[in-house]
């Protein structure tokens, strides 16, 4: 094989690909159209219902639902997210973990895995969209909503651990479907099973959509933005191959490599953002001024300060998934005898995701002055359509983030592409697990049943990357937020149980019954 000519082989492969690509693209278009038609006809009502707005406003009620939930939990637990951060960090550092439990899942590991499911495209692309439409003021409301969301995460993850299943063979798993079913039964309330089944159905749909097709689609857009346009099914097949290898082939090494690179990418991303902010230190005060002024006046953005508020709330809710119930699945495997400790740890998640990572993206975009202002009035200039702030080169979404980073560090957009692809991949792996857990809750465990789900999941990777399936993406987003409808109803009924756990734990911590190990 030594004399095998690589360039010739590549050229041959290239020709074949280009040939099939042209055909596939034709087919894609017609397939797209057909799938779109079927989907919008049968699911349009559902999407419209979930994303419908309060009468006379642009405010989607689902965002209101999440924010109201976060406010209720914050008040009910006495704004504990602002009081217990120190203890949360001590728990993450293992100071309250029994050394004899070494080798079991630590608080840090549960948190890191849950974070790898939420930190992703939302933090990079979504924030840019929010700023583009709502201006810098959106950031104020995003942080505000992120801080409130910490209480929601606390509630759901405590319940996730409390009502998890510990199987005879030693596996541990849980999530909303289990706490809805078991928690309602324990309180003698009807309907827990129904909520659990509904949650599972939405979770499976959300896993195929937002946790899969959307990720594959955005990853492809990023890659083709750098190497030039090429058919999406190629990206889809490669990604699906990796997902297949990890979930069905059981090739743990790929997952392990990703799990190691993703946190590194996250740190690199935040680190670079900090460097850019430091390089423009004289503008930090001005940037915060813009954020505060924009939060209450809008500074000329479409929809005024209400527009900023809606964008901020929406971005926080979409990004940290507080209330959706997904993270409770990842958190429930932790080794602890006190469910409340995982709640303490989980509340750090919206903080890291929204208050730290999203804010970094936002600050870089603001500080590098990607948004165009009118020098006379200081207000933001709208684009031609009048629905968003005009940006340099008319960038939006990931393009805006990329341009902001690239304006100070020219090579960073390339790193960003790698980061986006890796974030997308790790989100897919995490969501394939969430979906699988919901699937086995509905259909029972069994190798064949699980493989069926995993194969369907891989097929959706290819579809997601290959096509622009607007209605499908809308539908999957709607499914993810329907999880939140079911989950938060459940949380309202189950929050007294969390309160009882909290009171008992807090008093034992105070009396010294719960001790530090190190």
């Amino acid at each position, binding site marked *: 094989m030594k004399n095998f000519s690589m360039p010739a082989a590549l050229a041959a492969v290239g020709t074949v690909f280009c040939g099939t690509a042209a055909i596939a693209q034709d087919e894609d278009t017609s397939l797209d159209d057909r799938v779109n038609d079927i989907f919008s006809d049968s699911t349009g009502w559902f999407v419209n219902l979930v994303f419908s707005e309060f009468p006379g406003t642009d405010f989607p009620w689902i965002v209101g639902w999440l924010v109201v939930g976060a406010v209720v939990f914050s008040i009910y637990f006495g704004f504990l997210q602002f009081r217990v951060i120190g203890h949360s960090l001590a728990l993450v550092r293992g100071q309250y973990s029994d050394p004899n439990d070494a080798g079991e*899942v630590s608080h840090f590991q549960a948190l*890191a895995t849950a974070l790898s499911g939420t930190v992703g495209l939302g933090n990079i692309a979504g924030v840019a969209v929010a700023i583009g439409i709502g201006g810098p003021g959106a950031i104020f409301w995003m942080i505000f909503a992120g801080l409130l969301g910490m209480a929601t995460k606390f509630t759901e993850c405590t319940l996730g651990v409390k009502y998890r299943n510990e199987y005879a063979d030693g596996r541990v798993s849980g999530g909303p479907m289990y706490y809805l079913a078991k928690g309602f039964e324990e309180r003698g309330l009807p309907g827990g099973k129904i909520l659990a089944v509904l949650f599972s159905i939405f979770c499976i749909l959300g896993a195929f959509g937002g946790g899969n097709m959307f990720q594959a689609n955005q990853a492809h857009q990023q890659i083709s933005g750098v190497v030039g346009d090429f058919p999406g099914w190629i990206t889809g097949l490669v990604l699906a191959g990796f997902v297949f290898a990890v979930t069905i082939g059981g090739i743990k090494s790929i997952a392990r490599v990703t799990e190691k690179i993703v946190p590194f990418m996250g740190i690199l991303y935040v680190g670079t953002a900090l460097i850019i902010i430091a390089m423009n230190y004289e503008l930090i005060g001005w940037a915060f001024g813009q954020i505060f002024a924009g939060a209450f006046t809008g500074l000329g953005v479409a929809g005024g300060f209400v527009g900023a508020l809606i964008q901020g709330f929406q971005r926080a809710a979409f990004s940290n998934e507080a209330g959706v119930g997904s993270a409770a699945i990842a958190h429930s495997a932790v080794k602890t005898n006190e469910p409340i400790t995982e709640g303490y740890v989980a509340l750090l998640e919206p903080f890291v995701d929204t208050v730290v990572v999203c804010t970094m993206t936002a600050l870089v975009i603001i500080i590098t002055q990607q948004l165009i202002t009118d020098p006379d009035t200081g207000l933001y200039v709208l684009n031609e359509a009048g629905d968003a702030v005009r940006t340099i080169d008319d960038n939006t979404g990931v393009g805006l983030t990329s341009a902001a980073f690239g304006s100070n560090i020219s090579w960073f957009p390339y790193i960003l592409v790698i980061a986006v692809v890796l974030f997308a991949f790790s989100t897919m792996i995490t969501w394939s697990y969430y979906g699988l857990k919901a699937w086995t809750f509905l259909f029972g465990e069994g190798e064949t049943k699980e493989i069926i789900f995993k194969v369907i999941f891989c097929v959706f990777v290819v579809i997601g990357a290959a096509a622009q399936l607007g209605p499908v993406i809308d539908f999957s987003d709607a499914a993810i937020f329907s999880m939140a409808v079911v989950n938060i109803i459940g949380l309202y009924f189950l929050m007294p149980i969390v309160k009882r756990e909290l009171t008992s734990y807090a008093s034992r911590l105070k009396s010294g019954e719960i001790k530090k190990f190190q």
Partner: protein
Amino acid sequence: MSGKFVVGFDDSAPARRALDFAVERVRAQGGTIVLAHVLEWSPYSFLSPEELEERHKRRREEMERAKKAITDSVVAELEKAGLSVETEIRYGKTPEILSRIAKEKDAVQIVIGREGQSSFGARVFGSVAGALVQTAPVPCTIVP
């Protein structure tokens, strides 16, 4: 003087030399051998959600495997020779765990073997022996 000798043990030749050394001392002066096997583990490693679910199960399997493959036969051999033996299989960083076991058991000494070469790797990353002598609560013997 009799007492407990904690021996850092795996199925390597240096570990065997360390054990032989400890056995000689126990034969001469009495005491107990504490066979300590450490499974390297960091609570800060990253796991996939599936690995989280299976962690407890895997841990149980790994400990059973270590007991069967590494310590069981040696324990039988030492007991047959009329020596008193205890076993500890734990997760963590080797120097830290050996020190902790020595403290808990009120041991008189820790005995470990070493690979021999003062390699470049040991200089860069530090060695178990190096870390142990810095932190051990009791005298240590490093058997070459």
